[in-house]
């Protein structure tokens, strides 16, 4: 009376294997909707590993929302249109810098602040590129209240090519480090239903090689 599947895998010593479980079909899954357009049902997904002759080896748990998000530039308005579960969404968004300049971030604080946004009937929060990749607890709060999240990477106009005095569009100095951080951040946050869009930066493209790598790799992801 609930979804359960398991499979045996053989792993060589000191090795890593990328493993995909056969896709699980769902009939009439409860769909996750942005705030104001429906509910935000979340499925609890539990993964456990049991090693033969050892026992339980690792486990992972996550709240997952069934939704499909698409977006494109509408040529008639030159604006980005978001479509969730086939329905175009009128976006009412708020900008987000950071909860606290001393990074006193907590689940309770995130929930309170995200609830403020939801209670104002907003349905999107944009995370400005000059601040953080927000924490999983922030995204969980957005998952629960139906706030779509526009997450920018750490590039801004003023610090990455514009500004007074003009800054250098090729910054940061270590492009490989930027991409390593970007890959890790995507892996940290990618399972959240609220995550709607990755954006290269604020008011500015990243350096060409970073931008190209982000576009290419995010599509692969």
């Amino acid at each position: 009376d609930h979804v359960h599947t398991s499979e045996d895998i053989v792993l060589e010593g000191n090795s890593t294997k990328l493993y995909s479980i056969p896709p699980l079909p769902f009939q009439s899954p409860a769909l996750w909707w942005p705030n104001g357009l429906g509910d935000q049902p979340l499925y609890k997904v539990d993964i456990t590993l049991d090693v033969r002759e050892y026992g339980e080896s690792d486990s992972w748990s996550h709240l997952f929302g069934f939704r499909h998000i698409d977006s494109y530039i509408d040529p008639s308005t030159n604006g980005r249109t978001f479509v969730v579960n086939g329905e175009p969404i009128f976006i009412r968004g708020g900008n987000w810098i950071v909860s606290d300049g001393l990074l006193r971030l907590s689940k309770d604080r995130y929930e309170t602040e995200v609830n403020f946004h939801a209670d104002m009937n907003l349905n999107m929060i944009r995370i400005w590129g000059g601040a953080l990749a927000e924490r999983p607890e922030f995204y969980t709060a957005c998952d629960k209240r139906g706030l779509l999240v526009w997450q920018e990477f750490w590039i801004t106009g003023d610090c990455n090519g514009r500004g007074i005095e003009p800054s250098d569009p090729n910054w940061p100095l270590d492009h490989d480090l930027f991409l390593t951080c970007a890959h890790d951040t995507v892996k940290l946050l990618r399972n959240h239903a609220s995550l709607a869009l990755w954006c290269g930066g604020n008011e500015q493209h990243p350096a060409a090689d970073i931008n190209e790598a982000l576009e290419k790799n995010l599509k692969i992801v």
Partner: protein
Amino acid sequence: MATNLQSIILNEGWVAARASDVQLRGQDLTTSQFPSLNSDLWMEAVVPGTVLTTLLKNDLVPDPFYGLNNLEVPDIADVGREYYTFWFCNRFKLPRVPQDGKVWLNFRAINYQAEVFLNGFSVLLSKGMFLRHTIDITDWLNVYEENRLAVLVHPPDHPGRIPPEGGQGGDHDIAKDVAAQYVEGWDWICSIGDRNTGIWDVVSIQQTGPVRLVDPHLVATFHNSYTQADLWMTTELFNACSTRVTVTVTLNVSLDDASEFCIV
């Protein structure tokens, strides 16, 4: 779901000191006496948090978010990176002795770079404010005794300077690093004296068996309508032991509301 695996969140018991005031090396800090709060050097620390959070907790700086207090907080451009280079120390005991298992030390984010010491062993972590770090500490553990952890945290390489007229991102130098840029000041935001240096996200000790789940990925795809969907799960499986093993991967899915289940 019941589990025998242990995980400890290290968010209490931390002490900190300015590195330039501490004569001991990381090996010494993690093999001799745990730093005493009775000395003038060490103070209670806030982890997760920044160096400034710890200084504020100990009343060593005024609250920068009231009045003009932020002007009294030393800016890293004036006092140098050493001023905000700090040791953070903690200790822990494992609730259960691992047998043939693995123990991992996880940092979900450090700004900007850290050297980690545990019971005399050490590792230098990568730079970058937005990077998770997972360290296999199995062979470093004092299984039946206290384990001592010390983390030397360095500020961003290019903390920059705030021009008298302010400006968006100060002199922009922070953008040379992979870090938050608002810390040099922006619009109505005052600059942050320590540039958010610190162990600013969760630290945990995680116990696993020989095989670890790494970054599971869940994706839903839909058929012609939204009445049918497939759930895809992909994950890395890391076998940290030297022998071949057979592992059973089990996936359970149910609506969070425990009274409802979905039928495949």
